[in-house]
């Protein structure tokens, strides 16, 4: 693994984002606008806005990075640039690391904007500090990136890659406990929810945005999210083949 190759890749991904200003604007503006929209949808129910909106600030980057990474990596696969990179002195970790740094920075920027909007302008509470939500958000972004990288191997077109969003992200959003407490779901769904990484990502955010002391449960949540991220990255690295048929 080389720092130069990792850095060069991170910079290249950021160049691509900068060239595509409309996508960059969407990445930064859409979550902020959605949060403002939610604030007024829940106009008469401020407790519900706090319960859903506050953790959501840390989940937006997960959704975004899943989408952006799956499409960017799919493009690398279909345009032949991945094959070219695989013939060059670049390790898979350099490529994954470069993506991680570039999208991690973008996620940090997005999380800062969303958290500033939510916790300053819209009056959401973060009893343990908005910074904690921001840090969790960047971790979730890296999880989204790892998952997007993995699923990009199973899509042949960008259209298919976009379909993974409702197929893989939406069920996790429904089952993670954000909208309905998990223990009031049908028992089979409750059982399934234990196996989904977003459940732990949400649980950490719910603890970070409620006044109860944080405790060991937060550490356990973070450990599961980190473990799931590493597992997805390892799976994604396996799909980056040097030799193909």
């Amino acid at each position, binding site marked *: 693994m080389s720092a130069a190759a990792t850095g060069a890749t991170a910079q290249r991904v950021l160049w691509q984002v900068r060239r595509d200003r409309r996508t960059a604007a969407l990445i930064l503006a859409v979550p902020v606008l959605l949060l403002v929209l939610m604030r007024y949808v829940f106009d008469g129910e401020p407790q519900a806005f706090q319960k859903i909106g506050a953790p959501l600030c840390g989940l937006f980057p997960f959704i975004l990075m899943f989408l952006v990474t799956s499409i960017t990596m799919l493009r690398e696969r279909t345009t032949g640039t991945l094959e070219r*990179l695989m013939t060059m002195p670049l390790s898979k970790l350099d490529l994954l690391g470069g993506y991680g740094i570039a999208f991690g920075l973008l996620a940090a920027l997005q999380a800062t904007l969303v958290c500033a909007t939510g916790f300053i302008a819209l009056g959401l509470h973060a009893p343990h500090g908005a910074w904690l939500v921001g840090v969790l958000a960047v971790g979730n972004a890296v999880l989204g990136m790892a998952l997007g990288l993995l699923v990009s191997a199973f899509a042949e077109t960008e259209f298919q890659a976009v379909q993974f969003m409702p197929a893989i992200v939406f069920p996790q959003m429904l089952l993670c406990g954000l909208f309905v407490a998990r223990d009031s779901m049908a028992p089979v769904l409750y059982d399934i929810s234990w196996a989904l990484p977003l459940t732990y990502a949400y649980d950490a955010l719910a603890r970070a945005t409620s006044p109860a002391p944080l405790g060991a449960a937060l550490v356990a949540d973070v450990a599961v999210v980190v473990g799931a991220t590493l597992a997805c990255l390892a799976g994604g690295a396996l799909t980056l083949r040097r*030799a193909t048929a």
Partner: protein
Amino acid sequence: MAEPAIEVSDLGVTRGERQVVTGLSLSVARGSVTGLLGPSGCGKSTLMRSIVGVQARVTGTVRVLGRAAGDAELRPRIGYVTQAPSVYVDLSVSENLRYFARLLSAPGERIGELIETVGLRGLEQHLVGALSGGERARVSLATAMLNSPELLILDEPTVGLDPVLREELWRTFRELADDGTTLLISSHVMDEAAECDALLLMRNGTLLAQTTPQELRELTGEHDLGRAFLAIIRGRAA
């Protein structure tokens, strides 16, 4: 004599259920320009991919610069240009070259030299996606030459190019070979065969002949290399 740059023996490649390359053996001398000729679909690209080490399901042996094809140590020593230009369409010409130069630890001044070589001066700041097919192919070609590799594998590098530029590129290939670089260049245009030191003629996944332009003409009594190739195919069939 020095060890050949490429030595292939009894290469076989299957793709899906189909055997796309069968029993292929050849060698490519160091510092030569070798033309790989044959109709579209005859296995030229598959052979090139096997040499670079990106082809899966390969049997037989492929030795490149004294090592097994695909060896990690070979990666900085080989430049490979695929038939479809593999560069970032959402970056400019110069951003593409700067990125790959950093990956290949190539000196920055190579970028300017190569932009000149492939005739892209004035287009440095243009997005690759806004260029013509031939221009994109030249960005892809320049990328492979950034770190001055010992072996260049070029899959149809001159398709769709202006004849003047095509001639200039062939002159560049010749100069590189004179400086010791080995070039394996595929083409389906027989008039490019005359520019090569050695020729590999392929058809239906097999090697018809390993020869030189001179030898091919003498063997078949045809001055035109296209007709000579045809004579070889007919001779085989007879």
